[in-house]
């Protein structure tokens, strides 16, 4: 190996170590800090799993709600986001660029503003149609879907742009229906982008706080809001214990996917 290659390789390793260290150190702090007995100290004076034993049930209820909302919002947002992306890339109609910009708008507005506006909107619907959307799981899911759609669309648009439209035209010429051409030609081609969009949508929804703060009520409270309410009045290692459990759960899920399906093939990176 030449000298310049060794230097370049060494610099890459150092750079990667610094970046990974910066990204992973907070997670290690959270995990280690959760072993405090009763107060938040670092390093912990005594190691104990007491904070895991005292995790309130509300945290697990919040986790359940967050998972349900994130999954449902992602399921709803995916076909809508793909349809929007198809319209923007393949469509030839007036106002296409306007639609493109409009799709970005939920990401540009502060989530808190969106949350208040949605809350008021739901109140009006409830008053007019005698429903109970305000504070319901449905309202929460619809609110989260509104900002998940742009994530899916923005991830699919580059993949669609790169795919030559002639592939779809060839499929049609060979007798494929619109749906067949989409499912057998277009969908496999946009799979990497779609997988990324779905992942972003799910994570953003799971992690969302500002909009959820205004849309949650009673038992329909998401985990980030539960945790915020907890730390407003009590700052205990319990919060770190819950966070550590979420980290472990996420890592276990990724490991399971890698061992069973393989992350690379899930996103279509190793297609023959």
């Amino acid at each position, binding site marked *: 190996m030449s000298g310049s290659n060794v230097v370049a390789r060494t610099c890459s390793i150092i750079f990667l170590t610094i970046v990974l260290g910066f990204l992973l150190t907070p997670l290690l702090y959270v995990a280690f800090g959760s072993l405090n007995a009763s107060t938040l100290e670092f390093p912990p004076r005594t190691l104990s799993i007491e904070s895991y034993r005292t995790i309130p049930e509300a945290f697990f209820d919040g986790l359940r709600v967050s998972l349900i909302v994130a999954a*449902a919002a992602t399921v709803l947002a995916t076909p809508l986001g793909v349809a929007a992306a198809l319209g923007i890339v393949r469509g030839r109609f007036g106002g296409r660029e306007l639609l493109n910009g409009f799709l970005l708008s939920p990401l540009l507005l502060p989530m808190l503003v969106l949350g208040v506006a949605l809350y008021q909107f739901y109140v009006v619907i409830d*008053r007019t149609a005698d429903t109970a*959307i305000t504070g319901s799981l449905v309202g929460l899911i619809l609110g989260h879907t509104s900002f998940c759609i742009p994530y899916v669309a923005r991830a699919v648009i580059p993949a669609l742009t790169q795919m030559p439209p002639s592939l779809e035209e060839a499929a049609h010429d060979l007798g494929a*229906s619109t749906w067949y051409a989409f499912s057998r030609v277009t969908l496999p081609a946009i799979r990497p982008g779609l997988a990324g969009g779905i992942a972003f949508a799910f994570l953003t929804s799971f992690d969302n706080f500002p909009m959820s703060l*205004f849309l949650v009520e009673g038992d329909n409270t998401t985990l980030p809001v539960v945790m915020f309410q907890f730390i*407003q009045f009590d700052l205990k290692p319990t919060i770190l214990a819950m966070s550590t459990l979420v980290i472990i759960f996420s890592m276990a899920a990724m490991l399971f996917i890698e061992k069973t399906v393989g992350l690379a093939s899930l996103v279509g990176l190793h297609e023959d």
Partner: protein
Amino acid sequence: MDWRLMRRMAISAAIVVALTGGDVIVARAQNGGVLRFGTYGGTMLEGQKIYLGEPFEALTGAKIQWTAATEEVFANKLIAAGKSPAYDVVLLDDPWYSLVRVRGLASKLDPAKVPNLNKVQKLFRLPEDMGSCLFSFSSGIVYNKNKFAELGLPPPTRWQDLASPKLSGHVGTQTLAATPVKYFLAAYAIQLGDTPTKWDRAIDEVAKIKFQSFSAGIADLMAKIEAGDVWAAPIVGSRAYALIEKGLPVEYVLPENGNGTKGGISCTPIVVPKGSTNAALGEKMLNFALSPDAQLMQATAISAYGPVISTLDPILEKAPKIADRIPWGKVVTNGFRLSWDSEADLDRFSEYVEAWNRKVQK
């Protein structure tokens, strides 16, 4: 048609519907026997579930749906919802209570339906009975007695003692949203000859203090006191006693305000929002919460808060372990309580928040 894909989508949709437990089908609000209670989170919520929620549910057969949030969120939701509030009873500290009251969003309580309202002490009776004080708490100074001894400082007797140069860089505070900070500023305003809620010059004086930190929440401030980073801070009494009970070397005092009173004596109002679909049940809850039994349980709960009724004084006289931690008796009858009575006062409060952020928390 790709039947495999369609089947997978149908199964996913069915799972989503099943997991959402029927909430996917929007239903009419079932408010016949459900009381929607908005309160603060953490130990407040846990305590109220035990001493208010469980007995009330047993007595009335009603079910309580608890929602925890902060007073700012509650106030904004009440304003956004207008005539269709999401709560039947809700806690609202000042000035958000005053904002909701001035906007006409709180119901006027009828002493015939809430007879325990007549037991509420004069200091805690709200304007036109638009809601009621639920519990009382004091605002004072917590200080590390070991550090003060080391520095040769006597225990603080005035709010202005926090400006001592020897404490520079080790005075903690919360944001202007916190009640003790409001009394801190009120004391400066009184000293400068202004009214207690006119803080223009008071903020300029407080801006000269070098604070250790600005805690967004009380839990953060308590953690810093425990860690020894903060040696003195304005704080709510119950939180100061929580630190003392942990065995920390801290003391709590009610400092002089400059108007013949000591410390701040506040309450947290509870209101029945106008337009609540279950106002009758809300009034029942209020009456129960103001009963001597509930008020005494509140004083001994996880986070101890003082009663707002006067009939417990004979009991508290004989129970110093409870009484020492909460405001009662002469502390209340001679107490000083801040209030914001007009929309102009409230508009000024928003300007003070901006001034505090710009000049003090820069």
